[in-house]
């Protein structure tokens, strides 16, 4: 097997492994919204005040998934 093909294969395997991280971020976002709904259904009057925090938490959590996606993209297209 020529080295170029091995390098290509390693890149794609690495990109696939990096993409697992987006699933982990999915768990985080799911937990976030699930817990928020859990609290919101118990005390609907508090929802308005906490919406900003929800969105903030979403953005910070989702960013970690984006980091993993970024590594996958860099391996696919840039390296």
């Amino acid at each position: 097997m020529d080295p170029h093909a091995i390098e290509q294969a390693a890149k794609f395997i690495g990109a696939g492994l990096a993409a697992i991280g987006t699933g982990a971020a999915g768990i985080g976002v799911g937990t976030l919204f699930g817990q928020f709904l859990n609290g919101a259904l118990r005390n609907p009057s508090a929802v308005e005040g906490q919406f900003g925090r929800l969105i903030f938490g979403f953005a910070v959590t989702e960013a970690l998934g984006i980091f993993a996606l970024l590594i996958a993209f860099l391996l696919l297209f840039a390296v």
Partner: protein
Amino acid sequence: MAEAGPAINPIEQFELSRFLPITVGQHHYDVSITNSTIFMILAGAATLWLMSLTARGSLGVPGRLQSLGEMAYEFVEGMVRSAAGEEGMKFFPLVFTIFMFITMANLIGFIPYSFTVTSHIIVTVMLALIVFFTVLIYGIKKNGLHFFKLFVPSGVPIYILPLVVAIEVISFLSRPLSHSVRLFANMLAGHITLNVFGGFVVMLLGASAAVKVVAILPFAMTIGLDALELLVAFLQAYVFAMLTCMYLNDALHPGH
């Protein structure tokens, strides 16, 4: 397909091109006017234009434009007051400028064939370093050595304190990194994703007639992603400004 690589290069959109090559000094430092420079100026000019338009001739009953400006102002004002307290309002101009610049740069980047300034880490890292050094210099100037109480949380048992202090110092120093990479990675990954799905549409349309119909799927996905990215463009500007407020709060009120 794999050995040929993707037909459409999604990285191409981030390439810099010199419009007006300029070098300075004996070492020929490159300070050329690039597409990045132009879009940065555009984002700044658009912000200035919008805000001066909304602030002109303030009426008692605001029109549409004026309420847009007032909403933006009150939004950031609420953010600064809640995260950094009343004292934080002296940094309102900084936070508002950062917020408006990033929002505008992100939104301008949305226009097809335009350039997203914030998808380059050098831009976001400079913004993050401005915040970092503002916090550091102002914090030390205002609180003196008390500023370093930031690294020593109260109520921690003495035997675990060295570890906690080390962690606090490292987390303080890594702030500009996470602060800048969050915005940069979101914008970069978002634009690459849009480009990849757009590329699918083009590739499928180039195929035989029976396959052409399938192109509707990635096209619908592109529309959905566009909506998500529009949200992300606002959200990341908000998060960047919000974190700025939190960091400034540390400079204003060190000690946990």
